[in-house]
């Protein structure tokens, strides 16, 4: 039963990926990409990786989907053609042969590795020392805290890079407004945005809180928050901040900064990013809350894009 389910799931994943890549209409391609992301989330659930399933559905399907739709709208407004004009048949065939060969080699490499959860018992043994029960949170914020710290800086760096693409005379302004243009549609979107934003806040706080013992965590919570912000912005319930607003800049760096400060404080006690015995859980939850808030704001602004000259509509 499980085997049949997983086989069908894998076939559906491959099928939706094919359609997302090859369908002529790009909006349909994005729709299939979102379906693909949700099926990937189901695959992670089948693997028992609920943390990853949450992240994949929220970020891989949700945020990336919004981003692609928004970019498509902006490109169409500029008069770009996104519908694919494929290469010649022979080139297509050649690419197909090369890529299938590559996939086969990769598959052979995969088959040569036996699936193995060798690190799970090691991590299980270490978990009681940090007082957190979700092993993924343990890895992210204690055993490989380095990676997560750098990752939070990567997000910040990506936002700075996106901002650096703004035209010179647009610099400190706000990104292009996300609000809908049609007044009646705006009305619908506004009431939904006003309803969803507080719910998103509560759900994000809940996800971060349960993340220490059960599936959830800072990234998942932060993404839910970003979704709430984006919906509120689309409904016009919330404006987008100017890039030089100091309070807003502090919310962007708060997460990485608190993380770094706690890491450096750990250095005073011995090692960088080492938590003192008995205080690990409190520190981890503190870091996660700040991180989730910063991630939410950063992701929402990454989607919104660079500052623009005047009030234009995507």
């Amino acid at each position, binding site marked *: 039963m499980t085997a049949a389910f997983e086989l069908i799931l894998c076939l559906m994943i491959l099928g939706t990926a094919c359609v997302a890549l090859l369908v002529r209409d790009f909006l349909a391609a994005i729709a299939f990409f979102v379906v693909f992301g949700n099926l990937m989330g189901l695959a992670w659930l089948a693997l028992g990786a609920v943390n990853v399933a949450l992240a994949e559905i929220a970020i891989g399907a949700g945020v990336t989907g919004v981003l692609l739709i928004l970019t498509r709208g902006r490109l169409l407004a500029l008069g770009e053609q996104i519908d694919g004009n494929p290469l010649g048949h022979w080139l297509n065939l050649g690419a197909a042969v090369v890529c299938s060969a590559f996939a086969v080699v990769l598959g052979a490499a995969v088959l040569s590795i036996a699936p193995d959860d060798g690190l799970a018992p090691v991590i299980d043994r270490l978990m009681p020392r940090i007082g957190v029960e979700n092993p993924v949170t343990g890895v992210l914020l204690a055993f490989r805290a380095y990676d997560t710290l750098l990752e939070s800086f990567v997000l910040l760096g990506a936002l700075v890079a996106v901002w650096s693409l703004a035209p010179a005379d647009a610099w400190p302004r706000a990104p292009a407004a996300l609000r*809908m243009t*049609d007044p*009646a*549609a705006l009305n*619908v*979107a506004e009431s*939904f945005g006003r*309803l*969803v934003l507080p*719910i998103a806040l509560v759900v994000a706080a809940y996800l971060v809180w349960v993340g220490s013992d059960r599936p959830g965590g800072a990234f998942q919570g932060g993404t839910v928050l970003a979704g709430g912000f984006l919906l509120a912005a689309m409904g016009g319930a919330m404006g987008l901040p100017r890039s030089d607003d100091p309070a807003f800049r502090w919310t962007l760096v708060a997460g990485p900064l608190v993380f770094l400060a706690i890491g450096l404080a750990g250095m005073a006690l011995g090692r960088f990013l080492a938590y003192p015995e008995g205080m690990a859980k409190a520190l981890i939850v503190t870091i996660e809350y700040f991180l989730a808030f910063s991630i939410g704001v950063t992701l929402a602004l990454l989607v919104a894009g660079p500052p623009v000259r005047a009030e234009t509509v995507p």
Partner: protein
Amino acid sequence: MTWVSVATGLLLFAGVFFYAAGTVGLLRFPDPAARLHALTKADHLGLAFIALAAALEWGSVAIAAKIAAVWLLAIMAAGTSAQLMARVTRQDHSDEP
């Protein structure tokens, strides 16, 4: 085979039936409004049945409350997106005489 598993099976069956009906409507109905009608109504009845089945399967009030919250959010989101899509299709139609 307790009565709970029988009820779960029946609810799941009803849910899948409504999903299938909604999908058939989406594929076969002629105009966008009718397709939206099939999608939102039938699919969310299907979701409701599957949510009920899941809640029954777990048999805990706390989990049932969470599932109910998820279901409520899903139908609100679907209602909003259906409204927006209906408006867009109406605009598209008025654009092309």
